[in-house]
C-alpha cells in the first residue's frame, strides 16, 4: 500500500501518458488523435512536476527567515513545465488549424479514408 502512496503521482502521470499514446495509436478520428496528444502532454507535465514535488513542501521563496530551503519544492521542473505547456499549446493550435484545412480538402476527419500518400 505504501508503494502506491509514495508513487501515486508517477502512476497517475504514466497512466495519462499511456492513455494519450493509446488514443493516438488506435483512434481514427483526427480530433480524437489530437486530444490524445494533449492528454499525453498533460501526463508528461504531471510527471515533470512530480519529480520536484515534496509532500508538505513550501513555495521556493524566502518570504520569512524561518523558511528552510530543505522543505522547498524544487522550482526547476515547474519552470520546465511552464515552457512545455506553452509549446504544447502551440502544437495543439497548429494541429487544429491543420485539421480544419484537412476537412476542407477531404470532407472527412477519418484518417482511414485519407490515404493519398503511401509508401
Amino acid at each position, binding site marked *: 500500500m505504501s508503494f502506491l502512496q509514495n508513487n501515486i503521482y508517477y502512476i497517475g502521470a504514466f497512466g495519462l*501518458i499511456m492513455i494519450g*499514446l493509446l488514443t*493516438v495509436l488506435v483512434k481514427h478520428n*483526427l480530433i480524437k*488523435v489530437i486530444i490524445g*496528444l494533449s492528454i*499525453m*502532454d498533460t501526463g*508528461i507535465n504531471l*510527471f*515533470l512536476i512530480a*519529480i520536484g514535488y515534496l509532500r508538505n513542501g513550501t513555495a521556493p521563496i524566502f518570504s520569512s527567515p524561518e523558511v528552510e530551503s530543505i522543505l522547498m519544492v524544487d522550482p*526547476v*521542473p515547474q519552470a*520546465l513545465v511552464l*515552457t*512545455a505547456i506553452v*509549446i504544447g499549446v*502551440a*502544437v495543439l493550435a*497548429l*494541429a487544429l488549424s*491543420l*485539421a480544419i*484545412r*484537412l476537412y476542407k*480538402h*477531404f470532407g472527412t476527419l477519418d484518417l482511414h479514408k*485519407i490515404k*493519398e*500518400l503511401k*509508401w
Partner: protein
Amino acid sequence: MVNPVLLIAVPLGLAFMVPLIDSASRKLTRFVPVAALLFNLILCIRLIPAVLENPIVINLGGFTPPFGINLFVGPLGLLFAGLISLAGLVVSIYSLSYIKNGPVVKYHMLYMLLLTGATGVVLTGDLFNLFVFFEILCISSYALVAYHGDRAGIESSIKYLIQGTVGSGLLLIGIGFIYGIFGTLNMADIAMKIATVEQSTLFVPMILMVAGLGVESAIFPLNAWLPDAHSSAPSSISAILSGIAIEVGLYAVARIVFTVFGISDIYLFFAFLGILTLLIGEMCAFAQSNIKRMLAYSSIGQIGLILFALALATNNTVTGGLFQLVNHTFSKGLLFLSAGYMIYRSGSMEISSLNGMGKRMPLTSLAFTVGAFSLVGLPPFAGFPGKFLIVSGALLKGEMVINILVGLVLLSTVIEGTYFFRVIQALYFKDGNGEQRKQAPATAVTAMIALMILIVALGVYPKFLADFLSSASSDLLDKMSYVGSVLK
C-alpha cells in the same frame, strides 16, 4: 571577440521583425533572410580561429555552469552553425524568385525560425534548452510543409505533426528521468556524473531520448513521415529539411549518445541501425517513380550511412561521417533545388516527364547531375573523400562484423548509383516533347552555381575541410575535454 549568442539572437529577432518590415516596404521582405544568414555566415567564419584554439563557452545570464543555461561553441557546433547559415543563405537566395505565391511573409518568418531552432540545437549545452530549440525547429517545419495548402501538403503535415509530437513527448520524458536521476540539466555536468550511477538505470532515459530525437532524424523504424513531408513541401523547404533538419536531429542523437552518455557497449547497435536505415532508404528510393520521393528516400539512406560512420567512433570514421554530412547538405540541397525548377517547368513530379530536360534546361540538368554524382561518391566531387574516409576508417578497425557492414555500404552505393543514373539517362539520352529552351531565373541559377562550386572545390581539395572536421570529431568523441571546458 564577437559574441556567438548573436548567431541565435539575430535571426530570431529578425524573424519577428519580418511582418513589420513587410508593412513598411513590400519589396524588402524577401531580402531579410538573406541578410540575416549572411550575417551569421560571416560571424561563423570570424569565429573559426578562436574556436580552433579553445571552445567558447557562453554563460547566459551570468550564471556559471552547472546552473543556468550555457552555450557551447566547439568545432562541431561551429561546423553545424556554419553549415546551417551557408545552406540557409543559398536556399534563401533561391527562394527570392521561387516563392512568389501564397503567404510569402509567413514563409520568410517560419524559414528564419526554422534555422534559428537548428542553430540553437547545435550550440546549446543544456538538455531542456535543446528540447525548446528542437520544438522551434519542428513546429516551423510542420507549418512549412503545409505551405502550399494543397491536399498532399496538409495530409503529410498532419502525419509529420502527430509523429513529431509523440517523439518530442518521449524526449521530454527522457529529460525528466535524467533530471530525476542527476538533478541537473547541464550536459557537461550530466556527462561528468554519468559514471556515478549504475548503467542499467540509464537505459530507459537513453532509449526514450534517442527514440524521441530519432523521429526527427529519420532513423529507420521512425522515418515514416519523411518521404511524404519532403516530397510535398516546396522544393526550397525540402532542401532545408533534407539538408539541415534531419542532420540537426542526428547531431542531437550523436551528442547525447557520445558526449552525454558515452556508453560504448551500445555503439555497435547504432552501427547496425545505421546500416538498416541505409539499406531500407536506398531500396525504397530505387522503387520510386516520383523524383522528390526518390530524393527523400535517398536522404534516409544517407542519414543511415552517417549514423553508421559516427557509431564506429574512431577519429577517421567520424571525420568521414561529418564530411559525408557536409556533402549531403550541399548535394541534396542542389538536387532538390534543381529538381524544383525542372518540376516547375514540366508540371509533373514523375521521372518520365523529365525526359530530354538536358536540352531544355541545360544548366539545371547539369546541377542535378553534379549533385547526383557527388551523392553517389564519384571523384572529383565532395562525396568521394567522405565515403573513402568512412570505408577506409571502418576497414582499419579490422573486425569481421564491421567488414560485413562495409560490404553492405558498398552494395547500397551501387543501388544509389543505379537509380540516380536512371534519372540522368532520362535527362540527357531520352527525347522529350520538343519545347523551347528556357532557363531557371537568375537567382536560382546563382544558388545552384554556388553549390556546384562548393561541391567541386571540396572534392578537389578535401584537406581544406578535413582538418577542421578532424577537430570537430574529437570534439564529439572526447568527453573529458568537453566536461573540462564547460565546468572550469
